[in-house]
C-alpha cells in the first residue's frame, strides 16, 4: 500500500495515520466501502497525494 500511495497522483484515505485506500478520483475513494463506513470518524483523513519528487503547481486557481 505504501508504494501504491507514492506512485500515483490522486486521493488517499488514511485511518490512524495509515493509508487504507487510494484512487485517482475523489468520488471513487469516498465510495469505497471501507472509507464510506468510516466517514465521520476523526481518525479518518482524506487527502490528495502526489508521487514522491513530483513538483506540483495548481494551475487552474486564478481569475474566476
Amino acid at each position, binding site marked *: 500500500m505504501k508504494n501504491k500511495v507514492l506512485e500515483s*497522483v*490522486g486521493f488517499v484515505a488514511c485511518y490512524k495515520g495509515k493509508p487504507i485506500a487510494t484512487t*485517482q*478520483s*475523489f*468520488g*471513487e475513494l*469516498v465510495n469505497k466501502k471501507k472509507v464510506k463506513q468510516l*466517514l*465521520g*470518524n*476523526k481518525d*479518518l*483523513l*482524506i*487527502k*490528495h497525494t*502526489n508521487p*514522491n*519528487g513530483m*513538483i506540483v503547481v*495548481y*494551475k*487552474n*486557481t*486564478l*481569475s*474566476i
Partner: protein
Amino acid sequence: MSIKIPYQYKQSPYFGKICDIGLVVEIWLSSIGYQPFQFALDSGADCTIVPRHLANLTGACLPPTPDAALTGVDGETMPAYTGHLKLRIGSDEFGVRCLFTESDKTPLLLGRVDFFSLFNVHFDNRNNQIVLERLN
C-alpha cells in the same frame, strides 16, 4: 487565540526539501457530521476549490449546469459550480464560498475568498509552521 500548524515536508530531486502546506480542515457532511480532510493552503487560489463529488456529501444543491469556470495562467478553463462549505479548524467553525469543479480529480485547495477575511495567515518560516489567527 491562534492555531499553529507545523509544516510538512517532501523531498524533491531538483530542490531537496520543500515545505508542503497541508492543513487539516473538517468539512460538515450532511447526515454524517464533521469529517477531516487535508487541504493545500493555496494563497495563490482566488477561492476554495474542491471536487464536485464533495457536493453530494455536503448536501449542496448544485445548478443543473456549471455556473462558473476556472481559468489558469495558461488560459485553460475548467467548468465549476458555485457553492458553500461549512468548515471547522480546531473549535473554530466558519463558512466559505467555494467552487465545486466538474473534475473529480481536483485537489482540495483552501483559497483566499472568505478564509482570508476570517483568518490572519502567517507563514512562520522561522518556526516552520502556519499560524492562523481568527479575525472576527
